């Protein structure tokens, strides 16, 4: 038995009992996934197509375990009531499983704020626009009849009386306020009258009123989501890509002027949770 054979005899058990398991362990460790903080971006109004995209991303986040938390990055004036409610309800289901943190970029107004109160924590930039809690509806005309159009009931053509329509709007507003109360809980410092006034606040003011939790950037929201999910050294992913959603479908939600300038007015009459800012004067 020469010297070389003696050395190999000494190393072999270590290779067998340490090296091989270590290599196997390293390979095995690769199956421990790096946690993902998914980002859902809303940079548009909330309407049928944008809501459908958001819901697909929410479902992806709910079904895939590597997505440990979600950041909702908002820059939206709101949109239709029914699409806002649809996203809000799906968001509530996701939040039952995984933390959701909202990051308000430019604006989370009206319906977009409705979505943000469905998050565990809300960050806003100091000058983000937050709030505008309420509902807008176009009242139908007082019912009348046409000679050339026959309908089966007095409200078939109009849907409801003006008075009923007005009361429906307040009913929707009450539900909106309830969502704010439930979402914010004890953190809500503003009085009910202030909340439903329809005002839009700067992010810093929204924090003071308890409508948002902290002034912070999107990275702060990612860190907060990771903290709530109990993860570190996470990676972020745009859930739109992960969910395999094609590029946003162009939908003419807002009226465009003949010069191609998008106005803040929706194309169709309806019931909206929407902030309609004044137009800038033209030179």
């Amino acid at each position, binding site marked *: 038995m020469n010297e070389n054979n003696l050395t190999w005899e000494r190393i072999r*058990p270590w290779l*067998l*009992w*340490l*090296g*091989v*398991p*270590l290599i*196997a*362990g*390293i390979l*095995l*460790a690769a*199956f*421990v*996934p*790096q*946690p993902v903080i998914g980002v859902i971006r809303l940079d548009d109004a909330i309407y049928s197509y944008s809501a459908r995209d958001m819901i697909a991303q929410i479902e992806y986040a709910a079904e895939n375990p590597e997505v*440990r938390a979600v950041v909702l990055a908002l820059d939206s004036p709101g949109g239709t009531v029914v699409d806002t409610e649809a996203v*809000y*309800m799906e968001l*509530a*289901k996701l*939040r*039952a*499983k*995984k*933390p959701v943190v909202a990051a308000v970029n430019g604006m989370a107004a009206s319906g977009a704020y409705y979505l943000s109160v*469905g998050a565990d924590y809300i960050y806003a930039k100091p000058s983000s626009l937050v709030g505008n809690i309420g509902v807008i509806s176009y009242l139908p005309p007082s019912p009348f009849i046409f000679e050339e159009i026959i309908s089966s009931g007095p409200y078939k053509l109009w849907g409801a*009386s003006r*008075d*009923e329509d*007005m*009361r*429906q*709007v*307040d*009913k929707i507003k*009450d*539900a909106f306020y*309830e*969502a704010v109360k*439930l979402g914010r809980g004890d953190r809500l410092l503003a009085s*009910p*009258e202030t909340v*439903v*006034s329809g005002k839009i606040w700067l992010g810093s003011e929204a924090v003071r009123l308890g409508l948002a939790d902290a002034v912070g950037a999107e990275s702060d929201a990612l860190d907060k989501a990771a903290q*709530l*999910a*109990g*993860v*570190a*050294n*996470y990676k972020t992913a745009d859930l739109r890509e992960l969910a395999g959603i094609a590029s946003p479908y162009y939908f003419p939600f807002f009226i465009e*002027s003949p010069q191609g300038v998008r*106005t803040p007015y929706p194309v169709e009459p309806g019931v909206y949770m929407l902030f309609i800012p*004044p*137009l800038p*004067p*033209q030179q």
Partner: protein
Amino acid sequence: MKKYMIWIALAALLLPALARGIWFYRGLPPQQREIATPDYQSFAASQPPISTPLAAEKVKPAGGVVLFDMAHANQFQPSEAQSLEEQIVRRGGSVETLLDASLLGQKLKYVSAYVVVSPSAAFTDEEIRLIEQFVERGGRLLVFTDATRGTVYYDWWNETITNFSDAALVNPLLAPHGIAVNNDYLYNVVENEGNYRNVFFDQFGKNELTFGLKRVAFYGTHSVKTEDGKVLLGGSASNLSSTDDAHHPDAGGAALSADGGVLVFGDFTFLSAPYRSVADNAALISNIADFALGGKREISLLNFPYVFSKPLVQVYPAEGMKLTAETIAALGGLQDALRVINVELRVTDKAPRAGDVLVLGVFEDAEKLEDFLAPFELELSEDEKTIALKKFGEVGRAGNGLLLFERSKDGNTLVLLADSQEDLLALISTLGGGSLSGSSEESAEEPPAEETPEGEAAPETQAAPAG
């Protein structure tokens, strides 16, 4: 040895995964949570408080004409005022509309009340003067503004929307009466009638207009304030003005002028269905109808030709006065003017003791007309150059005429006196023109009618020289 190696192998196998796990994960994933969302089914649309029907209400017949202004691009449909019109008709009154602003002066001569609803065209200084005179003489002015009926202008160039409020257009009309409509709207997010802009009023200024009211609801109302009058409808501290988001106890939904002749509302929508029957709105509308017909008009020469109370006017020329062809022609013109209001002239040669009378004469006949002229204390100078009326002083006779008007329970008397037959013709022709506005009309301040011991109103007299 072998047992020791097994532990090392196991550790080597698990350690990388454990290290990676610790690197990425800090504890167990959050537990499944219950997330509360609104119980949407529990939210119900609010229902308005409906008032008790007023079917058994007894109304006092009053009569009179209520004039609705539609000559200032008023933003309402007549059907919206139906509830008020029904109550006016129920009290024996009637409703007319003013479509031509140039007829305002004529119409105000006989109507009991003038109603202005949300105008979008300005009143001229002359119209404001006429309306002020109308109120001074016992007419009632009702002004309804509405915060939802401003005129919206869309500037296509700048793409901006501007709302011109009706408040600015009625305030010049209301300024002489110490009332102003604020360019705001009242809102209440705490307690409202279905929407923040529908506010309740439950604090009432003491007046017949608020009799029987416990709570009324207005639908998009301006606030109304008054300097020396009375705010009739006040609300809770949570009724706020859009101007400064503050409650103003000195401004409310309606105000009455100090003299009780001008009633102003910040809302008009409460008159229309279905809001007319919400809370005590129906009772308020009923009270408004009483107010509109409840004025005590002072009939004066300014009201000509509406100065007669009966369908027949007896024309009495002074004894010995000849009715020439020119005089009859002039009377024909006067008859035409009076026929419009269904009044007939009939010449008589006997001095009438009752009924409406038109007396014609020249100054020389003054003694013959002593019975008619006595209330005016007319004095003719001996040199036949001047005439003196106690309330006007002395004026020259030549070229001047007198219109002397007396009201009494038995009938109204209008005396036309002039220096000559020609001047008298001119005076009759002026009257036949249907208006006295072309003459140098002056009216005397009359003392209030005194009650006689028998309880009858003393006759009211008025005189005006016409040059």
